[in-house]
C-alpha cells in the first residue's frame, strides 16, 4: 500500500517536471469575480503587483459576477495553455467539469478567497482567511486591553445570516468566553454598511444611557465602525477613548480614524491572496512540493501603535 502510493507520488512528480519545462510559471490566468467592493479591487491590484514582482505574465479576466463568464475565461486559459490558473469563484457549485478539463490539461488551479464544492483533487490548493480566527483576534485584543475592568460591549453584526457575520461573531465570543467582566449587551445588524452602522449605533447610544453604559464597540467590518464613529461623535462622546472600537478588514479609511485616535484596532483581511498562492505554485512547479489543501492567510492585528498614518499611505492606492 505504502509502496504504491510512493510510486504514484513519484509519477506525479515526473509528470509535473515534464509539464513545466522551465520549472517556473511564465503565464498565469486569473479569473476574478468582479469589482463589487473596495476589498476586491485591492485584491486585483495586489495580484497584478505580485505577478509583476515575480516576472509572471498575468492574464486577467473580470467575470462581472457571472459564473458562465468565469467558466468561459477558464476554458480560454486552458486553450492558451497557461502554466497555472488563479480562480476567485463567484459561487461554490458547478465547477467540476471545467476543473476536470484543467486537470486533464495538467494546469494547476489555485482558489483564492472562496471555496468550491468539488472534489479536492481537482485543484491544487485554496488560499483564504479564517473568518472565525479574525473574530478571535479581535476578541483577544479587547480582552488584553480591558484587563480586569468590567466592560459592556455593543456589537454591529454583518448582514444577518451571511457567513462572515456568523463566523466573526462566533470567533469573538470564543475569545471573550471565560472573562466575566466582558459582556455583549446589545447586538444588532448593520448590514456591513456605513449608513446602517451609523443608524444602529445611534440607537445603541440612546438605549444605553447616552452611551455612558458602553465600554467598547465590536464591528464585523470597518465600514460599520466608520459609521458608528460618526454617531458617537455626534452624541458628544469621544470614540477611541470613551468607547473602544475594534473592527475587522483593515480598509484604508479605518487607518485614518486610528491615526486621529478615533478607532483602536482592526484585524486585517488581507487582499494579498496572490502572494501565498504564487509561493505555493513556485514550490510545486520547482520541486513538486504539494501544498496543503488550504493555506490560511495571516489575520494581522493593527493598533494605534502600528503607525496607522503610514499604513493608510500604503493602502490608499491599492484600489480599496
Amino acid at each position, binding site marked *: 500500500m505504502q509502496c504504491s502510493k510512493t510510486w504514484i507520488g513519484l509519477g506525479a512528480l515526473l509528470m509535473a517536471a515534464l509539464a513545466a519545462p522551465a520549472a517556473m510559471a511564465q503565464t498565469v490566468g486569473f479569473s476574478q469575480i468582479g469589482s463589487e467592493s473596495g476589498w476586491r479591487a485591492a485584491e486585483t491590484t495586489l495580484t497584478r503587483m505580485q505577478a509583476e514582482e515575480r516576472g509572471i505574465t498575468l492574464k486577467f479576466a473580470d467575470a462581472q459576477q457571472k459564473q458562465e463568464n468565469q467558466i468561459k475565461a477558464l476554458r480560454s486559459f486552458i486553450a492558451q495553455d497557461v502554466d497555472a490558473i488563479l480562480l476567485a469563484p463567484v459561487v461554490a457549485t458547478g465547477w467540476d467539469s471545467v476543473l476536470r478539463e484543467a486537470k486533464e490539461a495538467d494546469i494547476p488551479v489555485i482558489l483564492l478567497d472562496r471555496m468550491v464544492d468539488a472534489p479536492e483533487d481537482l485543484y491544487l490548493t485554496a488560499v483564504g482567511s479564517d473568518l472565525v480566527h479574525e473574530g478571535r483576534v479581535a476578541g483577544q485584543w479587547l480582552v488584553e486591553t480591558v484587563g480586569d475592568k468590567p466592560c459592556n460591549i455593543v456589537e454591529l453584526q454583518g448582514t444577518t445570516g451571511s457567513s462572515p457575520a456568523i463566523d466573526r461573531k462566533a470567533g469573538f465570543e470564543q475569545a471573550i468566553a471565560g472573562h466575566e467582566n466582558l459582556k455583549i449587551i446589545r447586538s444588532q445588524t448593520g448590514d*456591513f454598511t456605513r449608513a446602517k452602522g451609523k443608524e444602529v449605533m*445611534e440607537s445603541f447610544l440612546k*438605549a444605553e444611557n447616552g452611551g455612558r453604559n458602553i465600554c467598547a464597540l465590536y464591528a464585523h467590518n470597518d465600514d460599520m465602525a466608520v459609521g458608528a464613529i460618526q454617531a458617537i461623535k455626534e452624541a458628544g462622546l469621544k470614540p477611541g477613548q470613551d468607547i473602544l472600537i475594534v473592527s475587522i478588514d483593515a480598509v484604508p479609511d479605518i487607518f485614518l480614524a486610528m491615526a486621529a485616535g478615533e478607532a483602536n484596532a482592526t484585524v486585517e483581511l488581507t487582499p494579498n491572496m496572490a502572494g501565498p498562492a504564487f509561493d505555493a505554485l513556485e514550490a510545486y512547479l520547482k520541486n513538486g512540493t504539494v501544498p496543503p489543501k488550504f493555506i490560511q492567510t495571516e489575520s494581522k492585528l493593527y493598533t494605534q501603535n502600528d503607525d496607522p498614518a503610514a499604513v493608510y499611505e500604503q493602502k490608499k492606492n491599492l484600489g480599496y
Partner: protein
Amino acid sequence: MNAGIRALGRIAPQLATLAAILILVAAVFPGFFDISLANGRLYGSPIDILNRGAPVALLAIGMTLVIATRGIDLSVGAVMAISGAVAASAIAQGLGLAATLALALGAGLLCGIWNGILVAVLGIQPIVATLILMVAGRGIAQLITEGAILTFSHPGLLFIGGGTIAGLPMPVFIWIITGLLVGLIVRRTALGLLIESIGVNLRASRLAGINTKILLVAVYMASGLCAAMAGVIAAADIRGADANNAGLWLELDAILAVVIGGTSLLGGRFSILASLIGAMIIQSVNTGILLSGFPPEFNLLIKATIILIILVLQSPRMVAAFRAGRRVRKTAEAKEESAFS
C-alpha cells in the same frame, strides 16, 4: 375651515397609526420620548426618527406624485446612489458647494427625464420603464465612484447631512420644507387637479386638453429631484458616497409610505402629507426595532407583521366594516332614544 376639517379627516387614520406605533415603542423602550439638549443639538429617539426618516420622506414626496398619475418609480434608490456619487466626486474635484449641489440635483432631474420619456413618450409601462434605471443606475454610480466608497470632508456638504439649525438636524428641515413646498405648489396651483385627472383617466384628460406628456415627464422629474436630495443627504450623513448600498431597497419603503398614506396605486386622489406621515410610521417601526434590543434575526419579521396589521386595518373591507359598525351603533342609539321619548 371646512376644508381644514376635511383634510384632517383624510389623514386621521395615518395619525392614529403613528400614535399607536409610538406608544408601542415607548412601551418596549420607556426612555423613548426623552429629548435633551447636548452640544447645541437636540438629542433623543424622536429626533432620530425625524432625521433618519428624511430619505424615505423625500422619496415618498416624489413617489406620491408619480403614483397619483397611476405610475410607479422603482429607480429612486438607484438615483440616490447616482446623485450621492456625483456630489462626492464633484466635491472631490474641487468644485464649490453650489456647483456640486447643482450637479447632483441635475443628475436626479436627468434620471427623471429619462424615466418620463420612457413612460410618457414611448408608452412603456412605468414599472418596466423605471426598472431599467433601477438596475442600471447603481452600475452608473459605481462607475462614478470606481467601486469604492468615495469619502469627502467638505464642511458645507457635510452640514447637509449632519449639521443642525436651532438644534434640529438639517435633513429634518430639508424634508419638511420640501414637503410643504411641493404640497403648496400642487394644491395652490392647478397641478394637483391635473395630476389626479391623469391618474384617473389618462385618455379623457388628454381629450380635455391637458398636456399629459409634459405633465408625466414633470412628475418623474420631481421624483428624480426628490431622490437626488435624498441621495445627497445619505452621502453627507456617512461622509462618503457608497454606490453599492446608498438607497438600497428604499424605493420599496417609499412605495409603502405612499400606500400607508392611503394613496391608491391605481392613481387619482393623493395626499403628500399622508405619505409623509406614512414615511414617519415606517421609520418609527425601524427605530423601534433597533431600540427594542431584539436579536436582528427578528427585524424583518417584526416589521412585516406591523405593516401587515396596518394595511389590514386600512383595507377597504375593514374600513367598510368599521363604518358599518359605527352606523349600526348610531341607528341603534337613535332607535333607543325614540323609544324612550
